[in-house]
């Protein structure tokens, strides 16, 4: 038992270790930011690499905690993302007085997500979700002297408290009608009665809130825009990824008896999410807000794949999120590099960027193409497989609407491309000095964007784990 305990909970334990290490360092006040950041980066890299080894399938704490190869992979995707974040926003991190605290918060949230993915009952699920949320609200407020940052944090904490209330109400109804909070027992107890549908809707809305599914998405853009870039990236990539994983697991496993209900729910909300996300993204000027709405639309796509309720669905969602990590982080990384050097966050400021910063421009272009689903970037494969998985249910109208939404999304991605490559500007952003670590991370992202799609074994690898 003890050995198994350490092996199975390895990711969480490692993360906890890092958190405490950071706290001790902070208390000791021994290290400069640069050194510390390097240390953190190394630790996170080790965490990521370590994630590949000693993975075992198993259950702990009477089913409260479960893990499997797929879950390990999902956690590792998140680890990778966190590692990339630590590289990409190095410039910003170094300027922070409270950098260790930021990482403590971020890694706590990560820990919450790990528990979330591994959670085996509704209580663990709820606690992990809160652990994954509350520190992020604090992270959102990290630009302490910016009004927008506080506003964003306020919106986040209040909205999420509200959504927690709804979620809890839903959980209580599930509990009341079945008497169980265990994921393993619930499928046998759910029967699709109206009250359970009501409970499902309440639960669903909480997931939807975290995933920014329309109409529960409204906090997203404001929080993304106001928060520091690193927080935004964390929210949009890691938080979303983790919730998508557990959402999928919950729907596929726990609510399998009610799959007809949630299939339709997912379909309707998917369409609404794509359409609304796209329509809002059309007219955004701020790059973070723009990426916020774009990520909302992306979630709409994830839902398409998710709706398939099949192995292909799981695989394609995990695959897509892997790709999404690379693409979105690359976009945020470029935006961060520009913002931290010039303070410019508007798309119009990007005009003529290519003339002065070709590297950033190409990475941004790759990232946006990948988000738009243009070959040969991985985003193409990701989206296509999501659609293919979704199409297996045979709803042509749904798939057609989804496919047509790709056009709108292409339009606004091209708007950025156009600003970067085509528009004339007498005063383009000057040549930016990119942190070496950020440059390295951008290269990783770029390579990921290209290779994850073309190398088909990655997809097969995921499929084998499912």
């Amino acid at each position, binding site marked *: 038992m003890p050995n198994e305990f350490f092996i199975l909970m390895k990711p969480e334990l490692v993360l906890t270790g890092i958190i405490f290490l950071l706290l001790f360092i902070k208390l000791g006040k021994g290290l400069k930011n640069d050194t510390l950041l390097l240390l953190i980066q190394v630790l996170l890299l080790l965490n990521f690499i370590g994630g590949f080894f000693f993975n075992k399938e198993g259950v702990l704490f009477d089913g409260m905690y479960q893990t499997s190869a797929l879950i390990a992979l999902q956690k590792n995707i998140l680890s990778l993302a966190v590692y990339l974040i630590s590289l990409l926003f190095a410039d910003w991190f170094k300027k922070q007085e409270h950098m260790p605290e930021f990482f403590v918060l971020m890694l706590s949230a990560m820990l919450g997500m790990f528990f979330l993915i591994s959670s085996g009952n509704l209580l663990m699920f709820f606690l992990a979700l809160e652990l994954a949320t509350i520190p992020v609200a604090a992270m959102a*407020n990290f630009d302490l002297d910016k009004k927008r940052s*506080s506003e964003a944090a306020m919106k986040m*904490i209040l909205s999420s408290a509200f959504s927690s*209330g709804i979620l809890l109400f839903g959980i*209580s109804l599930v509990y009341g009608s079945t*008497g169980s909070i265990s994921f393993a027992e619930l499928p046998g107890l759910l029967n699709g009665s109206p009250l359970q549908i009501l409970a499902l809707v309440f639960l669903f809305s909480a997931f939807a809130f975290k995933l920014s599914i329309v109409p529960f998405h409204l906090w997203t853009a404001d929080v993304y*825009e106001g928060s520091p870039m690193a927080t935004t990236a964390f929210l949009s990539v890691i938080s979303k990824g983790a919730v998508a994983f557990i959402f999928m697991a919950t729907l596929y496993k726990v609510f399998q008896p009610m799959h007809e209900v949630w299939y339709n729910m997912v379909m309707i909300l998917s369409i609404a999410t794509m359409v609304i996300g796209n329509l809002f993204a059309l007219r955004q000027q701020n790059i973070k807000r723009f990426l916020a709405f774009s990520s909302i639309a992306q979630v709409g796509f994830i839902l398409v794949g998710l709706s398939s309720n099949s192995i292909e669905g799981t695989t394609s969602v995990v695959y897509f999120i892997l790709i999404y990590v690379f693409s979105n982080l690359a976009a945020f990384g470029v935006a961060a590099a520009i913002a931290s050097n010039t303070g410019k966050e508007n798309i119009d400021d990007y005009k003529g960027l290519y003339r002065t910063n070709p590297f950033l421009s190409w990475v941004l272009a790759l990232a946006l193409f990948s988000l738009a689903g243009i070959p040969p970037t991985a985003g193409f494969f990701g989206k296509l497989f999501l659609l293919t998985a979704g199409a297996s249910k045979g709803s042509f109208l749904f798939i057609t609407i989804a496919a047509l939404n790709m056009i709108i999304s292409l339009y606004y991605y091209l708007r950025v491309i156009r600003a970067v490559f085509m528009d004339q500007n007498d005063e383009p952003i000057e040549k930016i000095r990119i942190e070496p670590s950020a440059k390295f991370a951008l290269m990783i992202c770029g390579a990921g964007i290209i290779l994850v799609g073309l190398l088909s074994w990655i997809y097969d690898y995921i499929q084998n784990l499912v």
Partner: protein
Amino acid sequence: MMEPGLYHMLFISATLFFIGVYGFFTRRNLVTMLMSVELVLNSVNLNFIAFNKYLWYDKMDGLFFTIFVIAIAAAEAAVAIAIIINLYRSHNSIDVENAEELKY
């Protein structure tokens, strides 16, 4: 009047829940909004306890849920209040209508 039972509890909790929700919708002061959230969480706690008491008395899941929710509520309130105070410092107001710079 009937002997109080499950449905009474559920009625109270549901009503409390939506009173909290109403407060959350209408209060302009951030602290009072937070108070409304506390009402909401309390109503849920009551739900869990009621279910545990009347239906699923063979285990204590509902009870534990309540305990943890209380803990979470505390943590949430703490962070929320920290954020509100910070917001007050920058805005000199905790009126929610004054914090809507981020929109559209």
